[in-house]
């Protein structure tokens, strides 16, 4: 070929290709190519050049990094927390929120009369103290006089009243107001359009608010910690009814700096926060970017989740990530639910046989690397009111077979379908394991069906499933939130159709009992009765597996929605 220029150009391209190929092969064969790197670690950026560091922190040269110990400099060199989050399912309007991830952000931006501390106890927030009178029917809240919205406006009892009435306003379609505030006198009337205000909420004076309840429920303060009871700024909402949620003017420890859906949420401190302002300069919730654990290893993020494939190694202490591992029990449970009104599960013996037939310990060990906790009850161990004495049906295949033989359906087992929410592909491993164990212990063939999430919820409501796989996460830390919501015959979330007079009586009595210890005892009795009747088989309590950089101090996950980021400090000293 006589064309030299073109030939040269093409030659250069070919050379480039070969070079890339060589690097590829070298690196792949070399394995830990980065470890031999002996360039000095990047110096810790001090506060003087923090702004610069923020601006070009990711244009850092590659050779500034090495794999192992990066506590000096890197992400620990700045007083900002970088963590991950889920894209909010709704806007930051406290009364619209039904999901945990949006609630987490909202809890940092807003506040209510009361809040939860890290031990899940109800503590004062906007209300300094409160009195409970009339046998638990009337709550009088005395507000602090130093609470301000982010824009500096002082919060008064009128703001609280406005916020509660806004939540109950039928024009606002709050999906949670009846669940959490429905026990306040007048909320239902307002929600159904029969009243203009909530008669049970009265402003006594500028800093005193009186709330009257229809029933003296003892978990009312717990309910008040949920987002639907948060205080919002009337002026902001009336000025900008459509867009105020983008920069909400709340009373919480943080303000929204930026919110870009699918990208990131950045919160900055409210320096006038009445319970003590946050200690970090920023909290970044990263909603985008590559694999969390890779970014964690690459020193780009403070907090990550352990990926499933790494879990065994991390738990055994063999992984280099083990030193960052933080298991956090969640206030949630997985279970298998039965339709107790349809064959064959209208016979308690069949349900009990199914419960005895599954070996949850083996499933936990083999499939979950012992990373979950076999649910020996319904209430999770970290929930206030948990009782160790409550037990579930142990794995006992012989007993299971006996129970089934005594049941009505011993010789005539109808077709059984277990439904779960999911897409195509194989069902989750644990469901297949149950299927196998039922087949072996009982000789019963259970079919597993997937159904799309919104259809799953709809059919759950209609009670069309024979048997289903489900989970429940606490909205507020009280046994009522599990037992009352899922098993009271009056609850609309009772999807099994379970009805037991004794259980109902216990739940009703416990709901309004003032003495906490006595109340928990009633719940324990109800819990054991429910488990014995087996409308559900509790399977596992969940644990979240976190990785947390050691420079992050006071990092906790209480397992439910609690404002928690104001406690966090970043140790930038590089210790």
């Amino acid at each position, binding site marked *: 070929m006589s*064309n030299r220029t073109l030939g040269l150009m093409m030659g250069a*391209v070919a050379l480039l*290709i070969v070079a890339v190929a060589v690097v590829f092969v070298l690196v792949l064969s070399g394995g830990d190519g*980065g470890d031999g790197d002996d360039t000095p670690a990047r110096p810790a950026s001090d506060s003087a050049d923090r702004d610069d560091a923020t601006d070009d922190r990711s244009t850092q040269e590659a050779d500034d990094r090495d794999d192992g110990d990066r506590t000096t400099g890197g992400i620990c060199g700045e007083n900002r927390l970088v963590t991950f989050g889920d894209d909010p399912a709704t806007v930051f309007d406290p009364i619209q929120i039904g999901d945990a991830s949006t609630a987490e952000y909202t809890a940092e931006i807003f506040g209510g009369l009361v809040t939860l501390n890290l031990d899940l106890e109800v503590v004062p927030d906007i209300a300094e103290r409160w009195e409970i009178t009339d046998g638990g029917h009337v709550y009088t809240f005395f507000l602090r006089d130093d609470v301000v919205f982010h824009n500096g406006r002082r919060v008064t009892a009128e703001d609280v009243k406005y916020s509660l009435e806004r939540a109950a306003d039928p024009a606002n379609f709050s*999906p949670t107001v009846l669940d959490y505030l429905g026990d306040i006198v007048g909320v239902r009337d307002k929600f159904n359009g029969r009243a203009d205000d909530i008669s049970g909420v009265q402003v006594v004076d500028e800093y005193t608010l009186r709330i009257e309840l229809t029933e003296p429920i003892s978990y009312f303060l717990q309910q008040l910690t949920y987002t639907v009871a948060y205080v919002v700024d009337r002026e902001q909402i009336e000025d900008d009814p459509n867009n105020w949620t983008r920069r909400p003017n709340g009373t919480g420890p943080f303000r929204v700096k930026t919110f870009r859906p699918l990208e990131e949420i950045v919160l900055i401190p409210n320096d006038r926060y009445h319970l003590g302002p946050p200690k970090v300069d920023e909290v970044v919730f*990263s909603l985008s970017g590559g694999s969390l654990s890779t970014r964690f290893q*690459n020193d780009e993020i403070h907090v990550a989740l352990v990926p499933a494939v790494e879990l065994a190694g991390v738990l055994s202490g063999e992984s280099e990530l083990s030193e960052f591992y933080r298991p956090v029990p969640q206030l949630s449970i997985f279970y298998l639910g039965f339709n107790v009104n349809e064959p064959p599960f209208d016979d308690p013996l069949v349900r009990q046989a199914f419960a005895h037939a599954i070996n949850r310990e083996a499933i936990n060990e083999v499939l979950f690397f012992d990373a979950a906790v076999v649910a020996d009850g319904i209430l999770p161990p970290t929930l206030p009111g948990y009782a160790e004495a409550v037990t579930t049906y142990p794995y006992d295949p012989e007993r299971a077979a006996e129970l089934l033989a005594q049941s009505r359906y011993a010789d005539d087992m109808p077709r059984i379908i277990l439904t779960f929410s999911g897409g195509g592909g194989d069902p989750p491993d644990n469901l297949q394991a149950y299927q196998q164990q039922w087949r072996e212990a009982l000789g019963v063939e259970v079919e597993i069906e997937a159904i799309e999430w919104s259809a799953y919820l709809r059919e759950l409501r209609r009670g069309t499933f024979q048997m289903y796989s489900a989970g429940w996460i606490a909205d507020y830390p009280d046994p009522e939130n599990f037992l009352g919501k899922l098993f009271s015959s009056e609850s609309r979330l009772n999807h099994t159709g379970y009805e037991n007079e004794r259980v109902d009586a216990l739940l009703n009595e416990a709901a309004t009992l003032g003495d906490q210890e006595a109340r928990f005892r009633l719940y324990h009795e109800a819990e054991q009765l429910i488990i014995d009747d087996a409308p559900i088989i509790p399977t596992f309590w969940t644990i979240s597996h976190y990785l947390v950089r050691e420079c992050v101090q006071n990092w906790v996950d209480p397992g439910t929605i609690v404002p928690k980021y104001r406690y966090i400090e970043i140790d930038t000293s590089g210790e």
Partner: protein
Amino acid sequence: MSQGLAGYVIRRLLWTVPVIIAISILVFLLLRLAPQDPIDSLLGQRYDEEIAERLRQKYGYDRPLHIQYLKYVQNLFQGDLGVSTKHGDFSVAEVIIPKIRVSAGMGIMAIVLVFGLGIPVGVYAALVRGSFLDPLIIGFWLLIDSIPVFVSAVVAPWLFALQLGWVDLTYEGVLHPNIILPVFVMSLPGVAGVARLMRASVIQVSNEEYVRTARAKGLRERTVVVSHVVRNALLPMITAIGLSLPGLFAGSLFVELLFGIPGIARESLQAVLGFDFDVVLGLVLFGSVLFVLANILIDIAYGFIDPRIRITAARGG
């Protein structure tokens, strides 16, 4: 532009209207007739018949289908694509435009990379055909092409971020160097296709009589290759580039998911899974308009490069 071409373009543009209408009706019906209910999905476990009913009224889902559709079209002509049920008070335009920007930005980089590498590689492979270099080069790019994106999108971060430390994986915007890795991952597999197309095209053109004539005239080989062979061989590339345009805006799902890039593919998936009606509809309409426009652009570009096509077009073909 000749009058004939202008008329041709206008005719083509007018034809897009019925096409878009047909697409919108089809997608609208598919979405509305699907068994899923966006209100179900929105309310989740908090579902309450009364609230659901009010929300249906708010979004107009309680009205007859044709009324819903006409209302949609009416809003469309006012530039209103509707609102996202998933993102509360965000309008569809607000939801999708930032994502289109991200995907388009990455797409343009990818196009430059794919064709910038693929065309020279293809030309070179054609020029050295017969020697061992030809199969070696094409084979190398085919090897790259045969690594699925969901593999390279996992291996590449491990290699270039963790082992080599060249890049970070945090998404910092489409103009930030962190975007290089995902752009490479989504582009490199495309190089083989372009290179092979270019190679075949160059070989075909080299056999044309006018190339022989050019050589016979005693033109320098360089002039022959650059002005006669490569220029004419580029013609199919126009189609290839044009047809890849809408695809680029569509984004690359695996890359966007595995690198967590807030682009149009990730948004589409979320919108479909969450039954965010108006967003899905908006995305489909956007995609179809883009596709139709890209086709028109290709035709026009052809006219500029190849006068024969322009003449045919002017005659009303």
